[in-house]
């Protein structure tokens, strides 16, 4: 320190800043400093379990909205939103033929924000089918499936199928006329497969027609089976993006 530089009296703001951000509790949670220097900005991404889905640096063309239209991220965002609104809906819903429809009616009329919750869940579900499809188109048209990302494209196709199945299984749960007959039409398509069609339809529906067995099967698949599978495939999907150095970039 040069002789001319004399320590000035620390202001109130400085001391407050230190009290909040330099104490042991804060430092035990966030190990890197406030991300206002390149080093700390990289550490913020690299040492945070959620943010480290990203690399610390990305190609400058990839932050342009028109490169990805955020479609993959939006699909994941909708998946998270669907999980949260879905858990809230589960508080009020019993998957039985006697109660399901009445539960939905009560949810819409008696539960505070119940209708809003159900609307959110429905629109996000439709939205996710759209964003996943458009994400696939984006990846195709930007040539982002090319080596070394071939297998991640395959995982993406699996995730597309899981998204459709998640939406399809959720379709039955309100137990109204739309639900019952859409699932009847859909499962009849499965039944038309050669040889294994009818046995598969029987297992899916749990009988010869859509009833209580189908409802509990679709419910279980919808709230736990398929989300778990989707989560596993998403983990692999994101991990591989990361291992391959982020998004595909021009050579």
């Amino acid at each position, binding site marked *: 320190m040069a002789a001319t530089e004399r320590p000035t009296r620390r202001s109130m703001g400085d001391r407050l800043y230190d009290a909040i951000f330099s104490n042991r509790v804060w430092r035990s949670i966030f190990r890197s400093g406030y*991300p206002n220097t*390149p080093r700390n*900005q*990289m550490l913020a*991404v690299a040492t945070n379990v959620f*943010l480290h889905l*990203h*690399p610390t*640096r*990305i190609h400058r063309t990839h*932050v342009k*909205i028109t490169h990805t239209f955020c479609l993959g*991220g939006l699909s994941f*965002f909708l998946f998270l939103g669907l999980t949260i609104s879905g858990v809230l809906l589960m508080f009020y819903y019993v998957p039985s*033929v006697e109660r399901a*429809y009445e539960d*939905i009616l009560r949810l*819409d009329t008696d539960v505070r924000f119940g*209708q809003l919750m159900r*609307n*959110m869940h*429905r629109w996000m579900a*439709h939205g996710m*089918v759209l964003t996943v499809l458009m994400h696939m188109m984006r990846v195709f*048209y*930007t*040539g*982002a*499936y*090319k*080596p070394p*990302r*071939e*297998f991640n*494209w*395959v995982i993406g*196709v699996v995730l597309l199928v899981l998204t459709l199945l998640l*939406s*399809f299984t959720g379709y039955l749960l309100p*137990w*109204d*006329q*739309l639900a*019952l*007959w*859409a699932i*009847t*039409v*859909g499962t*009849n*398509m*499965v039944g*038309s*497969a*050669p040889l294994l*069609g009818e046995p598969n339809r029987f297992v899916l529906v749990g009988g010869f027609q859509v009833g209580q067995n189908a409802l509990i099967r679709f419910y279980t698949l919808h709230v736990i089976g398929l989300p778990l599978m989707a989560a596993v495939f998403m983990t692999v999907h994101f991990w591989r993006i990361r291992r391959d*150095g982020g*998004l595909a970039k*021009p*050579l």
Partner: protein
Amino acid sequence: MTTANPAEAQSAAVRGRARRQREEELLVWPDLVFIEFISAVVFTILLVGLSVTVDAILLDRANPAVTPNPSKAPWYFLNLQEMLLHMHPALAGVIVPTVALIALGAIPYWDTDNDGQGEWLSGPRHWLNVYVGAAVGSLGTLLLIFFDNGTHANLWQAATGTKFPVSWLVNMREFQKNFPLWQDGAPLAFLKDIQLGGLLRADLLGGPKIDFALNIPAVLVEQIIPVMAMVGLPILLSAVAHKRGIAQTKRDHMILQFSGFIAVYVTLTVVGTYFRGQGLALGPYTIFAHH
């Protein structure tokens, strides 16, 4: 590619390229995290706004005794339901979607050239192939649907006041029934009902009597012609595009076919959703009246 090798193993050119790459890079915090945060906020607001203004559908309580007319699958399966009207159910409901998904998954193993990755349609003919694929896919699908619906025969009748002259060309079911070779009374009419039970005499071996009739015109209309159309027309499209110089590289052809596939998918979905009314008859029809 982004992970740096030990410096001594790198040539000067590679080091230069690595430095250039660094210069073309941005930090994820704040440049990307900020965009993600903003888009999450924007979409949360949009979704809450949508959910406040438009309620999710809820019809009457499910009743297995009352079949609504029309009964439709969820919208993203209406493309399959639309195909169901034109071909064998096993083909439309299971085989075609399975083959389509496998073909979709196989794209990167078909097109392994690394050129042009990470850029929107960078090749000179890429956009042209998108337009051609999308136009041929959607118009071709509409034409096939109109043909199988007998729209041309209806138009003829409206224009001339007389019945369409070639009865077996009205639609595929008429073709199956009335094609001159196998229409009732024609020498090949037996093709519609070939009893194979007589060949498989399982009953002589003590097994159950097998009754199995083969209807060749039905197999032709429900299976062979649709398969030929679904396989042949894309091949024809690629062949013509190749001949005309529209699609030259493998990636050109992939873009042509993928765009065609998306266009067919969207067209079938839109027709199945908005233009199929009672009895799944074709016509202007709004989903809003149904819901």
